[in-house]
């Protein structure tokens, strides 16, 4: 299949693995920032195939995992109101708030709908003028442009029964937060390719310089990830710390000008809380003043809703790469996808869920070892 099969070729993967093995002479720890990359690494067993002295640390880039409890509770509050159609991407429906999730609201009579695009939610608003349609705007720089476009269109078309519950987060401040942690072990980053396809790479050279850390923009297929690791390892071995683009088929240095233009018109940066981590300054987006009328928090008066997260799991440490999921005592016992204690176990891109789904059988005894040649 074009653009997928080419990047899963076992023979090419073997060559990259051999090259990585030849390159590394001592242990290195690198972080893949994005949950999609984590999922792909675990799903394809890439971590099992790497030389032992490459450690992959899983980063905070799962938008479902990092959406704060407070925002989930606001979503639940709004979605349970009569006359509201609450639209969301699919994987947010199972994320627990303080005592419920959106599936619960739906089964309790709330009109909660899964949409594949925020523009679908806008269409629902146009088709149901008597009801308030709210879209749950979560995600990194990847989802933000389409969501910005939906609000932009709503304003242009004067669709007044449409609003956004916004909890967008930005990657560069998260990378900085990881690097500034006193316990940080990360020596290189695999930056999220789809984020850079929107934002470009101009935000990264400063970070690479300041923290003396290689940053390699990396895609999501197995060969993309192996190439990212190979380049990061090469820089580490040479003592370099540059930004490299290993995903040129999708990423231009200047990003996507159209997407950036609508982002800058609709959103403005703000401090944002990350679930399990805390507030990271400048790490989020909120609707700009010109679009304040479309802010669901104000329209439904849930701005003051505050919740407190009880200390029962180590999801925050997992999100920052400080521990691996199985190092948490609850992992796989009291905390499973069926009964998640933390958001990293809920989302399919969450590190704990990926480990649970694909790795809880520590060393599966296989009948034979597959050849990759």
């Amino acid at each position, binding site marked *: 299949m074009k653009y997928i099969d080419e990047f*899963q070729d*076992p023979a090419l993967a073997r060559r990259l693995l051999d090259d990585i093995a030849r390159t590394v002479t001592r242990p290195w720890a690198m972080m893949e920032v994005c949950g*999609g990359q984590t999922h792909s690494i675990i*799903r394809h*067993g*890439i971590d099992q*195939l790497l030389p032992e002295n490459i450690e992959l640390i899983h980063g905070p880039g799962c*938008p*479902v995992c990092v959406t704060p409890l407070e925002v989930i509770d606001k979503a639940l509050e709004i979605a349970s109101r009569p006359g509201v159609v609450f639209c969301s*991407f*699919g*994987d947010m*429906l199972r994320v*627990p*708030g303080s*005592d419920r*999730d959106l*599936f*619960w609201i*739906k*089964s309790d009579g709330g009109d909660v709908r899964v949409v*594949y695009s925020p523009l679908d939610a806008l269409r629902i608003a146009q088709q149901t003028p008597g009801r308030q349609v709210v879209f749950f705007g*979560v*995600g990194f720089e*990847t989802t933000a442009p389409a969501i910005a476009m939906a609000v932009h269109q709503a304003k242009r078309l004067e669709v007044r029964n449409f609003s956004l519950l916004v909890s967008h987060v930005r990657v560069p*401040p998260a990378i*900085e937060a990881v690097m500034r*942690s006193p316990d940080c072990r990360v020596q290189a980053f695999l930056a999220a390719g789809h984020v850079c396809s929107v934002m470009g790479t101009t935000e990264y050279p400063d970070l690479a310089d300041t923290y003396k850390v290689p940053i390699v923009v990396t895609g999501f297929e*197995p060969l993309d990830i192996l190439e990212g690791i190979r380049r990061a390892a090469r820089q580490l071995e040479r003592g370099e710390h540059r930004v490299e683009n290993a995903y040129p088929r999708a990423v231009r240095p200047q990003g996507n000008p159209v997407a950036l233009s609508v982002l800058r018109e609709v959103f403005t940066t703000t*401090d944002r809380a990350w*679930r*399990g*981590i*805390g507030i*990271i*300054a*400048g790490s989020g987006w909120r609707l700009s003043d010109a679009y304040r009328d479309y802010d669901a928090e104000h329209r439904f008066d849930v701005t003051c809703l505050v919740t407190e*997260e*009880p*200390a*029962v*799991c180590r999801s*925050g440490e997992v999100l920052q790469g400080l521990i691996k999921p199985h190092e948490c005592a609850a992992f796989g016992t009291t905390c499973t*996808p*069926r009964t998640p204690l933390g958001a*990293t176990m*809920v*989302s*399919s*891109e969450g590190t704990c869920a990926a480990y*649970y*789904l*694909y790795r*809880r059988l520590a060393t*599966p*005894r*296989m*009948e034979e*070892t597959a050849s*990759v040649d």
Partner: protein
Amino acid sequence: MTDITADTEGWSCPTPPRDHPVVVMGHGGGGALSAELTRHLFLPAYGSEALRGLTDSAAVTLGGARLAFSTDSYVVRPLFFPGGNIGDLAVNGTVNDLAMSGAVPAYLSCAFILEEGTKLSTVGRIAQALGAAARAADVTVVTGDTKVVDAGHGDGVYVNTAGIGLIPEGVDIRPQRARPGDVVIVSGPIGQHGIAILSVREGLTFGTEVVSDTAPLAGLVQAMLAVTPEIHVLRDPTRGGLATALNEIATASDTGVILDEGAVPVPEAVATACALLGLDPVYMANEGRLVAFVPRKHADAVLDAMRAHPLGRETAVIGTCVAEHPGMVVARTGLGGTRIVDLPLGEQLPRIC
């Protein structure tokens, strides 16, 4: 550079709801929630030994005859989709459940639950399709029922079918009979039905139209049994897909399954759609495919018979039954790594990005 205020004292997560006291969509998804509902609510309530096997159809004896007996309800939306409609699905689904016991399906019942306001022409088209599918599957509809519910209390048409068929002498096909060494076979490409439904329900296109694989499999099963009655397990991987079927077999037989991921036939359009939406083809629904666990000594002959049948041309060997990791399905990835292929919780959810 920005100022960082990370609240290290408060790095924690809340305790989410552990159990839903009401029905949620996941209870009908064919995954872990469905299994829990059956195991913890229905089975204790019914107290029937015959149900314990949790097979697609029950094998019962009546008047000396071994019968397979099965029922299924169809709540598909939309009613008409590429490659089929709720009418032929209601026949093929029940016929296939009977066939998975090795039975020759014979008779069907058919109950319609109609929503007030549904066009009679729609009901007529579905009935016509149902009749045609029954004739194609060589079964006879012998009894039925019609109920109407208020407008707004249904999706136009729901259909329930039940069926009975005769299990031939010497045939004993059940998930419990999987044995280490069995060859795991799938009768064709997976995921087409799930993606066909998704594409029309959500208005998504993936370059090529994906057509449902809905088809009656009794003929294919008979062709397989003509080679040997010693087939251990047959399962049609409907809701929950291939992964769920394999997990159920592994659990029922207390064996492990090694799935050779690269050997699983996935049509390009299905793979593309799944990649775009963050779904896994092994969990997508099928309505015209079967999974077989066949003793190794018969595997080649069974494969030949399947590939000679019109519904089995793209049959593939996808794995092996093993004694290791009982109750678990472990995939060997294309790159040579391994991963667990788990039972899904409920329905698959398209991811954010």
